[in-house]
Structure formats: C-alpha cells, structure tokens
C-alpha cells in the first residue's frame, strides 16, 4: 500500500471512530476480583460485595469524602448531636430520586420512611423484613443493636436517632456500607408481589449507577443514573468484568479488555510501573498487620520481654521481601491515613544486641514459644507463613526458639480467640476510618474478654483513655486522647506492629478522575475516559 493510500485509510478510520464515539455510549470496564454475594449490602461484610452494591447503587446518610476518611453530607444535608451525645438528628436532603429501571418506577422522592425502613429492618427482630435474605452481621458486629435505642421520624425530612449512650464513632458508622439507604416504596411493592427476595437481586438505590444486569462469575452491568442528585456520572455505562486471577486481570488490562483492575500481584508492580500505557495510582491502605503477644501468659506479661522480642525483628527486611515495596513499616496500631495518627512515635529500632540484654534483664533465658501464622493471604499480610519464618530466624539470633503453628482460617480464628497462641500474626482492616475502630476495637478490655483483642491485653491506664475518647464528640479533645493512647501502646507493646500495606490501582492511561479510597472501596463516580 502506498503512503498516501495508507494515510487516506487512516483518515477514514479516524472519521469513523469519531462518529462512532459520539453515537456510542461512554463505557468503562473494571476487572473486579470476584462475584458479589448479593446486592443488598446490609447482609454482607466483604469489600467485593460492597463495591458492586453500596458504592455504585446506594448512598448513605453521610459518606466519606473521596480519598479521605472524613465525613461529608450525603442523603443527610446536615446533622446535629445533642449535648449529652445521646440524640443525633439528621436533616434529610430534598429532591432525591430513587432510580427508575425496567423493574421499578418510583412514585415519590426519598424521605424519612426510607431511612426508618433501612435501619429498622436490621434493628428490630419483629420487623416484617428482618428475616428476609439473611442476617445483619456487620450492623451487629459494630454494636449498633445495643447502641441505637430507637429511631424517630420527626417529619418527612427529619430523623432522630436515640442512642443508649454517647458514642463519637456513631457518625462514622453511618457512612459504612450496611448503612446504605434502600427504598421503602420498592420494598412494599416487592412484599405485595410476594417476592421480597428480589431486593437482594435487583437493587434500587439513590446512587450514581443503576443496576442493569448480572451474570454470576461473569459480569455486572450498570447504567449511569440520569437523575443522580450530585449530577450524572461522566460514564454512561460501567461493567464489572469478574476475573478472579490477578495475572489474568493484568493481561486483560494490557489488552484493553478492561481499563482499571483491582489487586495486582506485588510481583507484577515493577513491570506495570514501566508500562507507558498504564498509569499506577497508589495510596496507603487502611490496615495494620501485626504480631500479638498473649499478654496473659508468662513471660509475655512483661512489657520488657515484648519490647525485646520486637526489637529483635528486622521489620524493614520483611517489608522488602514480603510486601515487595507495597507496604510501609508500622509504628502505631493505626495507619497514618487515620486522623489522630501520632507522628512523634519513636520507631521500634532493629537492635538484636539490646534485645538480648533486655531479655537477660527480665530474667528470661532459653525461651521457647510459638508463632502462629494464618493460612490465607490478607490485605495486611500477603504471606504470613513466610513472615513467621523470618521472625523465627530473627528470634533464633537472640536465643529464642519458636515453632510455627498454622490452622485452617476459621479454626485459626477460633483458637486465637480462646487464647491458645503465645504469639501470632494477625491484622485488621478498618471499617469506618475512626481511630476508635482500631484503638478500642482491638485493644480495649472489653475486646479482650469477648472481641478482637487477640493479645488479651487489658491495661487500665490505656483502657480509661480510649473509653473516654469514645464518649466525647469534640474532635480536638479526641485527638489528644488518642495520641496519649498511642504513646501508652508504644511503651507497653502488646503487639509488634509490622506493616501498613499500600494499595495499588493500575489503570489505562485514558482513565481520568479515579481516586483511591482509604476504606478500600472502589468508587467510579467522577471517573471519565479521555478520547
């Protein structure tokens, strides 16, 4: 073909593309990691389900400001907390429309009835919807059945939550996925038609995208909600292409079969960074991986022993070889993305000599113990087994003999709860960005009795501080208390904090406007494609 012939053909092609571009809807395909368990986020606890339901289809009374864990108004335009902290009043937004699809057309706008329906069905065991489609583990897990006494509808656009006690993290809980607002009108219609199960399969919400179809393990289709109250999304269509294997997701991204992918393999990060057609965004994750010491057992009841064992471990080496750069060394129990993170905390040094001396001082010799390693990959720990081996080798150098123990994941969790481990690897991914969600949920005396405090650490000076911070609504006062809590933690070291992972999102260079959410959710509102 001659040169002019070629350019003429290219020109014709470009014209065709341009006309096709105007006629064709703007579509983005996202390579997601798995199938959602359902489309009503109230019943579930996994991020995969939340991405497909609450983040796309629904809104909550308050939402996280994109890219932060700060709260911003959403379906509630404003709110106030009473002086005793036990009444929270939400003023609802006017003019919000629920989505119209081929299976539901709303006849009224969003109002207080929808809020009451969404919460009462989780709260009240006698609610006609309570037993439909399963239980409400997240709602229960955050302690809300005990915290919310009742919810009052003041008028169509005012709702009052009456609490049994003052709780500062309550507002952050309202931004969580299970607090998504469902349509009461749709619910009534389904109940009347005798198929309430459909609520979990054909969702209706107020969010930026409306549901357009789902084939299990294959795809989820969404259309932009043309009436979205924040304004229609730049994308016309959004498709989740469900691709469980990370290497295959990467190949699909390279072949432009999808434009954004979730959870790349740490080993592929280097190659991705060098690829011209792919942009990599990264942000610190909302998680902490740690090694806990069972503080109820000798010699781990002595802070000096815990200090010594922490000092003996080369944590930077762990970051380099296990996280492959997708992680940072942790010094506090909370990650730096959470407000009140104490920058002034002294890092734990890597100092085997001093560790040995400390152990001697504490009168501990010939210590033999165990290190429990979880059998699964978690966001905060890509390879627990290998990590346990590295810690084992480091402890060997100061004369501590440790054997590695592992069980199937469910069994592992159960045995840790019963306090069978002396030391073990564990971690936490934050729920709502509130410091309380780490500092109290994982380390308070209550959590030691019956909760997620795997170190079984109940230390009164610390417990007093975090309990006090729970009941105060003033942000500055809370920051002071949480900084104090972190310094007590640093002195006592019930855990050796190991790492906060870094989240990477590879995407095609044509994608604009994507923001990584610290909470780990994937949000496509505001995302656009360059021509």
């Amino acid at each position, binding site marked *: 073909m001659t040169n002019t012939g070629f350019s003429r053909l290219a020109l014709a092609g470009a014209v065709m593309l341009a006309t096709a571009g105007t006629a064709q809807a703007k*579509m983005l*395909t996202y390579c997601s990691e*798995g*199938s959602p*368990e*359902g489309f009503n986020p109230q019943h579930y*606890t996994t991020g995969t389900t939340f991405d497909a339901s609450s983040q796309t289809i629904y809104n909550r009374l308050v939402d996280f400001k994109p890219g932060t864990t700060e709260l911003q108004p959403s379906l509630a335009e404003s709110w106030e907390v009473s002086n005793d902290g036990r009444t929270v009043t939400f003023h609802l937004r006017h003019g919000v429309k629920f989505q119209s699809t081929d299976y539901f057309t709303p006849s009224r706008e969003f109002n207080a009835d929808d809020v009451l329906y969404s919460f009462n069905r989780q709260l009240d065991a006698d609610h006609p919807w309570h037993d439909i*489609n*399963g*239980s409400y*583990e997240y709602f*229960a*897990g955050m302690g809300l059945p005990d915290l919310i006494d009742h919810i009052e509808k003041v008028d169509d656009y005012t709702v009052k939550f009456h609490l049994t006690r003052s709780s500062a993290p309550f507002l952050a809980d309202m931004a969580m996925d299970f607090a998504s607002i469902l349509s009461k009108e749709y619910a009534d219609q389904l109940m009347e038609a005798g198929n309430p*199960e459909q609520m*979990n399969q054909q969702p209706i919400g107020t969010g930026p995208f409306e549901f*357009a*179809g789902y*084939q*299990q*393990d*294959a*795809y989820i*289709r969404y259309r932009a909600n043309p009436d979205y109250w924040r304004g229609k999304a730049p994308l016309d*269509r959004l*498709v989740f*292409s*469900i*691709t*469980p*294997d990370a*290497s*295959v997701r990467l*190949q*699909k991204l*390279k*072949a432009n*079969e*999808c434009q954004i992918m979730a959870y790349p393999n740490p080993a592929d990060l280097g190659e991705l960074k060098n690829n011209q057609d792919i942009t990599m965004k990264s942000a610190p994750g909302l998680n902490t991986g740690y090694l806990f010491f069972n503080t109820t057992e000798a010699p781990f009841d002595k802070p000096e022993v815990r200090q010594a064992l922490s000092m003996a471990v080369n944590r930077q080496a762990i970051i380099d070889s296990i996280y492959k750069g997708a992680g940072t060394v942790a010094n506090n129990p909370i990650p730096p993305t959470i407000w009140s993170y104490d920058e002034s905390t002294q890092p734990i040094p890597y100092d085997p000599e001093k560790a040995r001396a400390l152990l001697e001082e504490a009168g501990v010799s010939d210590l033999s113990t165990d290190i429990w390693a979880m059998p699964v990959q*978690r966001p905060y720990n890509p390879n627990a087994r290998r990590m346990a081996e590295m810690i084992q080798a480091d402890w060997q150098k100061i004369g501590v003999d440790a054997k590695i123990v592992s*069980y*199937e*994941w*469910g*069994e592992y*969790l*159960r045995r840790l*709860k019963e306090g069978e481990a002396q030391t073990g690897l*564990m*971690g*936490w*991914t934050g729920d709502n960005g509130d410091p309380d969600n780490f500092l109290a949920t994982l380390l308070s005396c209550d959590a030691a009795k*019956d*909760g*997620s405090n795997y170190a079984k650490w109940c230390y009164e000076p610390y417990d007093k501080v975090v309990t006090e911070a729970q009941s105060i609504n003033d942000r500055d006062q809370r920051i002071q208390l949480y900084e104090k809590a972190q310094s007590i933690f640093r002195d006592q070291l019930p855990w050796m904090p190991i790492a906060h992972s870094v989240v990477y999102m590879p995407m095609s260079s044509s994608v604009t406007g994507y923001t990584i959410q610290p909470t780990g959710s994937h949000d496509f509102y505001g995302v656009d494609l360059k021509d």
Partner: protein
Amino acid sequence: MLNFLFRKLLMIVPTFLGVTIITFALVHMIPGDPVAIMAGERGLSPERHAQMMAQLGLDRPLWQQYLDFLWRLMHGDLGQSLVTHNAILSEFMSRFPATLELSVCALIFAIGLGIPLGVIAGIKRGSIIDHGVMGTALTGYSMPIFWWGLLLIILFSGILGWTPVSGRLSSSFWIDTPTHFMLIDTLLSDAPGAFMDAVRHLILPAVCLGTIPLAVIARMTRSSILEVLGEDYIRTARAKGLAPWRIIAVHALRNAMIPVTTVIGLQIGLLFAGAILTETIFSWPGIGKWLIDSVSRRDYPALQGGILLIATMVMIVNLVVDLLYGLINPRIRHQAE
C-alpha cells in the same frame, strides 16, 4: 437389550447412594465452619456463633443432617445456598450451560484432532510423524492446566493479540442470555459480531481443557489401531485387494474405536475436574468456579448439591457409553443377552 439397560440402571441406585454419603462426609470434613469464615478477623461471641449455627441448622448431629439432606433430595430439593440464599438447583442451572459449552467444545477439539492424529501415528508407526505426535501428546498430557492456560493467554492474547484474554463475551455486547449457552444466545440476539466474538472467547479455554483428553485419545487410538492392523481380517481385506483407505476407515477404525470410546467416556468425568481449573484461569462462569468459591466459603448445600449433580452427570455419561459399546460392537450386545 432391554434386560441389559435395566441391569445397568439398577446399578445406578447404590452408586448414587454411595455418592451422597461420600459427598456429605467429605464436605463436612473440611475444617472450619461457614459462620466463622464469614465473621473473619472481627469474630463473633460464642453465643452469637451458636445462634447462627442453629439458624443454619448446622448444630444438629451429622447423621440427622444427612437424613434431612437425603429426605429433601428425594423431594427434588437440593436446599439453599448459605451465602446467596438462592436455590442450589437454580444456581447450578445458571452456570452449568457454561461448563457444558466449554466441555463439549474441548471434547470436539480433542476427538476431532486426537483420532486422526492417532490413526496417522499408528499407520506410520516408527516414522518421524509417529514420534512427533506421540512426543507432543506426552508433553500435552504432562502439562499442568493452570500453567498451560496462562501460557496460552500470554502467547495468543498478550503477544499475538489473536484471541481475547478471558470471559465469554466482550463487555461491549449487552445482550440477554436466556439459554445461558453463549453460542446460542449470541445467535438469538441481533447484535452484529456477537457470535464470532463468543467463538473467539471459546478457543483458548477449549484448547486448554481439551489438551489432556486429546493426548489420551491420540495415544489410545494409535495403540488400538496398531493392534487391529495385526488381525486376520485385515489381512483378508488386504488380500481381497480393498483400497487401503477403505481398510483403515471401515475395517480397522470401527474395531479400534471400542477402547477409544471407553477412554472418551472416562475423559468426560475428568473434563469436569479439569474445567474447575480452566474456568478459574479464563474467568469462565461455570460450575467449577462456583464450587471453588463454595469450598472457601464452606457453603455446604452448594457443595453437596453441586458435586451430586456432577456425579449424576458422570453416571449418565457412563451409562450412555455402555450402551454405545453395544451399538459399535454387536458381540457385547449379544453377550449381555
């Protein structure tokens, strides 16, 4: 012939019962329970855990749960998924067409290529062709599916760009899938190019899944042909002066097909096993992927129902193979009578 069929059918009853017991026992031997898995790091109080287990009916003695499972099974009820709360049968039926479509294409690929290759290798015994075919077959047989699938993707989709990476259809086609057979659904839809797109998506997974059966079939055909070619009736046919292709196609191949049919029948059971891996790599929304997820979520009813349905399928295939022998070789039919 009827007597033969009846006896074969009678054999299915104890086999089926055995499968239910083994399935049930295996599924419940997996350590951990669905409630603990669901709770994750957050954990549950022992009371709440017990309450949830009771809600799911998992607190009763195992034999009671088994009898209950069997009772409902006899009423055609496979139960509900613990995770999605959908009926197991409808979950299975929405995924099985994908697996069937993939398996059939893989089998067509394996038979269509395996038999001719085996025949050629058999006729040209000891030649370069023979060594080439048998060497390739051995390599294909020894290749782990997971690795082979990724290799195919990297070469044909990544480097050459000939085929799509994974899935059943490009995401730009928004067609309905009433039958769940993508080849049929794309033909029913009026979207231009959708059918060819679905075909292109099928090629790599079908090749990946069909590789091991292909190797087995080629080797079996070769050795079977070799054996038959030494028989007296072949010499007679040659002596009569029949055309060589006629001797191979009519006299040799038909007789050589009996062991090959057995092997193909056995391969169908193995295909379902291979499909589990192939589907995971190629994001193929079939039962394999579903079973793997059910294992990790300890979704007992889904596992029991899924495995049982597959086992039933394999039993039916074996029955059909048994009947096919009779058609291919009258001697077996007469023996049975």
